[in-house]
């Protein structure tokens, strides 16, 4: 729209591509200033928290997995941890290790999907992974190998990579024998080199150098890189038990989104996900990953959302190494799952989904039926932060064509690997003048 006055303009991206889910972006400018900016999530509401009421708590891992086809393990893990806390169940240490391995698998496949299939085409001037495969087949093949290894771990423990079936409150319905895991070692050893190469590849992308005032939030564990357990910490001083989540953060509804917006009470937007985890837990990544991180030339911690893709690549390497460590130490538990009696109560749990902290809270009756459920997915926590980033981006896109501006906004949003199915889908960009 070359004839349009640039200072008063509406940019609208109607269907945001290469994100999981559906959303649109609406920006209205007046005198070159942002008068209104809305990330519109129009994923149809699926109302999980409503239909979970009256279901057996033991069904929650299978049902909530259906919130997201990309990160079903995360939903299974937050629900089993919350419900084990509620029913007073302590899982066997070997089960605990298997759950960590299960999560490693999902981090690897989800991060590899995002880096190679969704994000990398942006930085290399391609419209899809298929075009990228024509241009840089080696990189795409490497990404596919990494992803395959992640899927292999999840499938080994849960039968399939999407909506796996093995996890349950108390443990797993079936646990692998030692040799079934040892089979995965060779594949993981190959992929360890791929993961190191992937870090070098993404850190060579043309990432804008910005620094923003961001509050990063993630779990932190006394001696592990956080996945299933830990306290809530932030770069602005939060250090609290998981049970304090609802005291620290609040969700509110905005008319333009079917995902609720979250903020730190009394402060505002915050950031969850790989960059938050790396920033807050760098000392837990181990020497190999830390050295790979230093070799990128990027300072850690940092406040540049564009380095998220590198943080994601670092976490792939971490998860591959961690998976190998777990496999080497694995001894099958005495029983696949601990039995328990349902009871009335309430409890919550946070685990680190590939895209960031995932909060589940349940209340049950004496028969173990769910009375209420609350689920706060990472993308809904990042929404306000994404809008804040876009506001800062606007001055640089004012002189651009609609196509260029759309692309710039989509790329900025993709830093967060938003999973909009979780929130409840992604981008229509509309910039509107007065």
């Amino acid at each position, binding site marked *: 729209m070359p004839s349009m006055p640039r200072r008063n303009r509406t940019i609208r991206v109607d269907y945001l591509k290469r994100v999981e889910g559906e959303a649109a972006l609406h920006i209205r400018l007046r005198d070159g200033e942002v008068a209104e900016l809305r990330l519109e999530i129009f994923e149809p*509401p699926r109302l999980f928290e409503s239909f979970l009421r009256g279901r057996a708590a033991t069904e929650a891992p299978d049902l909530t997995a259906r919130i997201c086809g990309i990160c079903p393990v995360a939903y299974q893990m937050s629900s089993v941890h919350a419900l084990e806390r509620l029913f007073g169940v302590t899982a066997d240490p070997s089960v605990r290790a298997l759950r960590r391995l299960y999560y490693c698998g999902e981090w690897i496949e989800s991060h590899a*999907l995002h880096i190679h299939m969704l994000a990398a085409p942006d930085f290399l001037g391609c419209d899809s992974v*298929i075009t990228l495969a024509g241009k840089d087949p080696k990189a795409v093949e490497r990404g596919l190998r990494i992803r395959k290894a992640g899927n292999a771990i999840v499938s080994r423990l849960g039968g399939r990579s999407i909506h796996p079936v*093995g996890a*349950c409150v108390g443990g797993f319905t079936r646990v692998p024998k030692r040799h079934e895991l040892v089979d995965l070692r060779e594949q993981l050893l190959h992929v360890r080199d791929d993961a190191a190469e992937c870090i070098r590849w993404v850190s060579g992308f043309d990432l804008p150098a910005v620094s923003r005032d961001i509050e990063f939030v993630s779990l932190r564990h006394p001696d592990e890189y956080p996945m299933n357990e830990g306290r809530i910490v932030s770069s602005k001083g939060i250090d609290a038990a998981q049970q304090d989540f609802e005291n620290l953060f609040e969700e509110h*509804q905005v008319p333009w989104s079917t995902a609720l917006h979250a903020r730190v009470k009394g402060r505002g937007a915050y950031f969850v996900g790989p960059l938050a985890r790396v920033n807050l837990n760098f000392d837990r990544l181990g020497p190999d990953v830390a050295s790979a991180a230093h070799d990128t030339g990027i300072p850690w911690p940092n406040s540049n959302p564009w380095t998220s893709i590198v943080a994601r690549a670092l976490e792939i390497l971490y998860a591959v190494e961690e998976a190998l460590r777990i496999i080497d130490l694995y001894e099958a538990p005495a029983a696949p799952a601990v039995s328990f009696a349902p009871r009335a109560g309430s409890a919550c749990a946070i685990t680190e989904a590939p895209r960031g902290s995932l909060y589940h809270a349940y209340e049950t009756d004496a028969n173990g039926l769910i009375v209420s459920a609350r689920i706060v997915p990472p993308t809904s926590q990042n929404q306000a932060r994404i809008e804040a980033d876009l506001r800062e981006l606007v001055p640089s896109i004012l002189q651009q064509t609609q196509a260029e501006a759309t692309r710039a906004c989509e790329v900025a949003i993709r830093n967060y690997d938003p999973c909009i199915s979780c929130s409840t889908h992604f981008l229509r960009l509309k910039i509107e003048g007065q």
Partner: protein
Amino acid sequence: MKPRAAVFKFASCDGCQLQFLNAQEELLKLAELADFVFFAEARSRALEGPYDIAFVEGSITTPEDARRILDVREESRYLVTIGACATAGGIQALRNWSDIGEYVRAVYPSPEFLSTLSTSTPVSEHVRVDFEVHGCPVDKEQLLAVVRSLLSGARPVLPGHSVCMECKRRGNVCVTVARGEPCLGPVTRTGCGALCPSFHRGCYGCFGPADDQNMQSFTQLLAAQGVTGADAVRRLRAINGYVKPWREAGDALDAETKQNHSR
């Protein structure tokens, strides 16, 4: 010219279309055979119809989606629904037995901002569907078999027998007979590879009703295992609960349970 394929999403978790990306090497081969002109999850350039094959994931839950599916049908030579949401209404069809107003108020403080239908319905209730691929999620091999058939001009065929048959073939120990575990295998369509019994648990019906199933005999089997009343209704009303044979069996059990309660 290469056939033009498109993938459309309605209310869903993205898991079924992810199976295209999970096909990995096959996906790249597939891209030589068909041009995926619209695939929001995988590419940023969307091309206009018409399409030779449209894959539809997700159920119809909003007035806008009820209109959009008509457009997709209009633009597509073959329309293939993929997954439990598109073929059965999905897990979100649990709203069909509830008060939608109360459901929305329970999640959103300002329900007036939302536009949603009181039901979640399969695509086939709205438009003619040429082929259905079942599963939550769909099986990658079944999906690829359907794509290959359509690209070679053949009508796709997928098995419609029960999970029980698959279990026997695999030599699984029956979880119902050996451990008394309730299992939907006798009435559920094969496709998953009898996954849950292989993981020592009862099937929970991801692939929906098998072509032939005796629901009356099945609910009697459940009752003999002590699964009655609301518990039995819950097992039938889950991911594929809104499909006719399971819906009718679930509704009959529900009516019976309520009658027993009021006595």
